[in-house]
């Protein structure tokens, strides 16, 4: 019991702290002022209730009143909630269940996920412009480097597996094999046809 309370508390503090840094959050919260949205993940059966007001978002894990909108969503679909075009697909595939106003879901997903936080600006107030810029620049560079590195590693690993260690066939080999299978298939079909004909003639 107290563990879920702790979880709610941490979530609430986290979201509100991030909102403090995001200047657009206030306007978004105003649009949703007074709405209560129930969210539960299909994998975990812990419902969370988000009480949205001008001042902040409150997260409760028990609420006995009527919510404006209740969402049941699977973990994998969480990221796609933001995309308006995906919503109908998600509902069709059963990954998302909505009771109530679907527009609220979009606004709510926007509120939680689409935060425009200028980290460099906030950091510069603490440590000064130069350090903030250098820090953010290097972090970005580091991130970029990491991405290219991981791509390179991926490529090298693939090459090692297919070419050197011969643990798996390469793309061309697979394609050649598929071609061979196809030819074999057509030839067997032909053979079957011929056999059928021969058998028909004899009888």
């Amino acid at each position, binding site marked *: 019991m107290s563990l879920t309370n702790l979880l709610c*508390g941490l979530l609430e503090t986290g979201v509100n702290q991030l909102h403090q840094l995001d200047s657009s959050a206030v306007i978004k919260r105003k649009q949703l002022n007074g709405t209560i949205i129930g969210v539960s993940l299909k994998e975990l059966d812990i419902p969370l209730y988000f009480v949205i007001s001008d001042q902040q978002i409150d997260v409760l894990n028990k609420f006995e009143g009527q919510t404006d909108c209740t969402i049941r969503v699977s973990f994998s679909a969480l990221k796609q909630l933001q995309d308006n075009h995906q919503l109908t697909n998600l509902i069709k595939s059963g990954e998302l269940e909505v009771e109530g106003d679907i527009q609220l879901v979009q606004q709510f997903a926007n509120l939680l996920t689409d935060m425009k936080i200028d980290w460099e600006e906030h950091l510069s107030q603490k440590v000064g412009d130069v350090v903030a810029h250098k820090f953010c620049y290097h972090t970005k560079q580091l991130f970029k480097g990491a991405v290219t590195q991981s791509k390179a590693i991926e490529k090298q690993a693939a090459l090692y597996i297919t070419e050197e260690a011969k643990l798996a066939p390469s793309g061309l080999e697979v394609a050649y094999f598929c071609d061979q299978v196809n030819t074999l298939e057509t030839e067997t079909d032909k053979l079957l046809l011929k056999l059928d004909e021969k058998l028909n003639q004899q009888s």
Partner: protein
Amino acid sequence: MKKSPDNTTHFGFKTVEEDKKVELVADVFHSVAAKYDIMNDVLSLGIHRIWKRFTIDCSGVRKGQKVLDLAGGTGDLTAKFSRIVGEEGQVVLADINDSMLKVGRSKLRDKGIEGNVSYVQANAEELPFPDNHFDLITIAFGLRNVTDKDKALASIYRVLKPGGRLLVLEFSTPLYSPVKKFYDFYSFNILPKLGKLIANDSESYQYLAESIRMHPDQETLKEMMNQVGFDNTEYFNLSAGIVALHRGYKY
């Protein structure tokens, strides 16, 4: 609560005249009001936030309801209730101590909580509200300081709507003896020192520790609630019984 025949009551471990207790408790809170929130966080290591969160989960409060936050102090619960009940709802923050009420009011206003919150200086024993008025009444860490607890509970019962509920969050008796030993050591040796260090007031925190020991335990308080008419009374032990949340309904 057992009363001595000669109209005396306890103030921590001391015995004082009944009329005096109100003043003495008032002095304690006048003294700690300014640092109340910081002290709460330090002394409970922030766990009081989880206790309050649990209280809100048990409240079943919804939009448009009327809530009374008795002995609401600096308004932690009021802030949450105000957002949950929305514009149509109403939250009354009541405290007997005007210093605490002032701190609470300025804190809530700074947070932008206005409109559905009103502030009343009131004694829990004689609540200045009509009968059957509130959907929910909470008293968090306040009942301990009330002189006549039975009278206060009866008064709460009177102003509660039928179907409404009372939540009493209060220090209680730890369930396990190792916890109890540590807790005793903490509250008599460390707590007053921390009080001295941060709020420059060790007596108030000495009183806090003593008044907790004098407060009725879980079962006794439950019985007291039943006595004044509450139904379906139950309690939840939090943090191994250091704190207990009592819940009773009026039908």
